[in-house]
């Protein structure tokens, strides 16, 4: 009211303003320094290196966009590794959500001993990826592996899983789904948030189990699905350890599991092509951002936020 007659004053700073500011920055100082030293500084350096020819021992030589041009026009391994990663991402994201959702639904049923079962289903999470890779290489062994023994015991000839270019990539997807219980954990947490009344009213309206899954669970869970799909895509582009360990860094057979990161690792640490590898890292970052934005943009079409407008 007073401001109607008086000229507006700058909001007065509290007497302890400067002390509070200093105190605040002292508390967050570790992460501020950390971001500058370990993230933003290197990002700028990496952006610069991507425009150079840089073989670590010599100084970087500026070559403009040549690395990027070469990547997209000449490098056939780049195209191969990109295609491998995309195909993997599609299979992993879809299979991961289906398995994760079904398991989560199962793990939120009201039965006794549930926490015991949850423990069992979550356990693969803590297995070191090197160990799970070696474990699954044995499981998938064509001759002596337990999986093909099961096939054989019912009179079927099992595939050559990791040994054949046709099935190696899908075998890697299976490994990731097995180790990916985090997806399930997040779905379980999401399902626990769905109000029970919605299921009750669906039941009263005559919905069967499948219908209530389709018309209650899925919409109520769509923000969680959204989250898991985005993190699943990011995880796909980070995929490295199992492929590296199982194929001993080769991405075989015949480059069928030559993931983007295997390629990047080769360029950087086998051939010491630091400039070229930096360009690859930025292309990957660009792809991840583009895909994330695409999903964000499409989300109003399929993500349901309770309370209407999303912030």
């Amino acid at each position, binding site marked *: 009211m007073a401001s109607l007659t008086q000229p507006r004053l700058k909001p007065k700073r509290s007497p302890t303003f400067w002390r509070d500011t200093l*105190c*605040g920055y*002292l*508390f*967050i100082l*570790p*992460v501020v*320094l*950390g*971001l500058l030293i*370990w*993230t933003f500084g*290197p*990002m700028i350096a*990496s952006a610069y290196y991507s425009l150079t020819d840089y073989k*670590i021992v010599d100084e970087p030589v500026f070559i403009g966009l040549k690395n990027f041009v070469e990547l997209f026009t000449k490098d056939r391994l780049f195209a191969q590794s990109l295609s491998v990663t995309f195909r993997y991402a599609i299979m992993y994201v879809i299979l991961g959500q289906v398995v994760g959702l079904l398991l989560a639904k199962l793990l939120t*049923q009201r*039965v006794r001993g549930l926490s015991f079962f949850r*423990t*069992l*289903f979550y*356990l693969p*999470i*803590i*297995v*070191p*990826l*090197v*160990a799970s890779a*070696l*474990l699954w290489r*044995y*499981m998938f062994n064509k001759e002596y592996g*337990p999986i093909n*023994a099961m096939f054989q*015991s019912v009179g079927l000839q099992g595939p050559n899983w990791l040994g054949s270019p046709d099935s190696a990539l899908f075998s890697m997807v299976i490994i990731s789904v097995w*180790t*990916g219980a*985090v997806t399930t*954990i*997040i779905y379980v*947490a999401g399902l626990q948030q769905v109000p029970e009344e919605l299921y*009750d*009213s669906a039941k*009263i309206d005559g919905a069967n189990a499948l219908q209530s899954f389709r018309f209650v669970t899925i919409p109520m869970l769509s923000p969680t699905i959204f*989250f898991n799909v985005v*993190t699943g895509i*990011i*995880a796909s582009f*980070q995929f490295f350890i199992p492929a*590296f*360990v199982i194929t001993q860094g080769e991405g075989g057979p015949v480059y069928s599991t030559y993931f983007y*990161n295997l390629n990047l690792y080769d360029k*950087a*640490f086998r051939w010491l092509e*630091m400039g070229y590898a*930096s360009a690859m*890292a930025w292309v990957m*970052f660009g792809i991840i*951002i583009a895909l994330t934005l695409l999903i964000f943009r499409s989300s109003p079409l399929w993500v349901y936020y309770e309370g209407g407008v999303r912030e």
Partner: protein
Amino acid sequence: MTRAMDLPRPTVDAHQLNAAHRRRQRLSQGLVYVLLIGGALTFMLPLILMVSTSLKSYTEINTYPPSFLPKEWLPSNYPEAWNYQNTNFPLWTQNTLTILLLTVPGVLLTSSLCAYGFARLKFPGRNLWFILVLASIMLPPQVTLIPLYILFFKLGWLNTFLPLIVPPWFGGGALNIFLLRQFFMQIPRELDEAAIIDGAGHLRIWWSIYLPLSRPALVSVALLTILGIWNDFLGPLIYLTTPNKFTLALGLNMFQGLFVTRTDYIMVISSLMVIPMILLFLVAQRYIVQGFVTSGLKG
């Protein structure tokens, strides 16, 4: 809302309905158990086979058909694999533990300090920095990998534990800050106000009010950090080059590369790497799962 529709249905005998309903309930409960047990067996099978294979003889592993349990139990595989020529698993374990011990305190200390700053202090630029912290989660580590490698190369840190130990002392990871901040925000402000009246500074409030009250969140952070370091592969692979500096994960990979056919020994070392983490998980599952839920982190 549902209550209004819950009127009795006149045409069906209520008693009959109840009985049928209960029968169906039991049937579906049975089905749930069948699925739970079947699924659990499928998920556990690889781990069971890992341990069982680690106890089998070399010839038994390479005979068809594979056995579920060892025909002849060979616990002697364990010392044999552990002391195998050209490997040094005792040293690699020691290296891993050294990294753990020198990293976890830094993560707990600095992530909780930063989380306190973001949760409780007001200062210009706070939200901007918090957004930057969260945004850094989206950045694929590959983007910074190469400049960091070059930085460590120039600092002479390659083939030392420093590239693995030092960075975590700077905030302890964005997800951990986020997790602790969420926890700190739930602590009633009246507590710090009372402490301020008593003359306590923020450092004191952080140490003697927030940290003790946040034990579950701190345990989550510590456990996720331990899991992360124990399982870390890419970091050691890039920064540690000579076998005397290897971690367990790296040692296991070298071992499998040298002796691809010794599935028995590979499973021994895998089991030895997995079992401590399984025990940790069984003891502290609540904290680990909570940490995963809050941070939503993916391997």
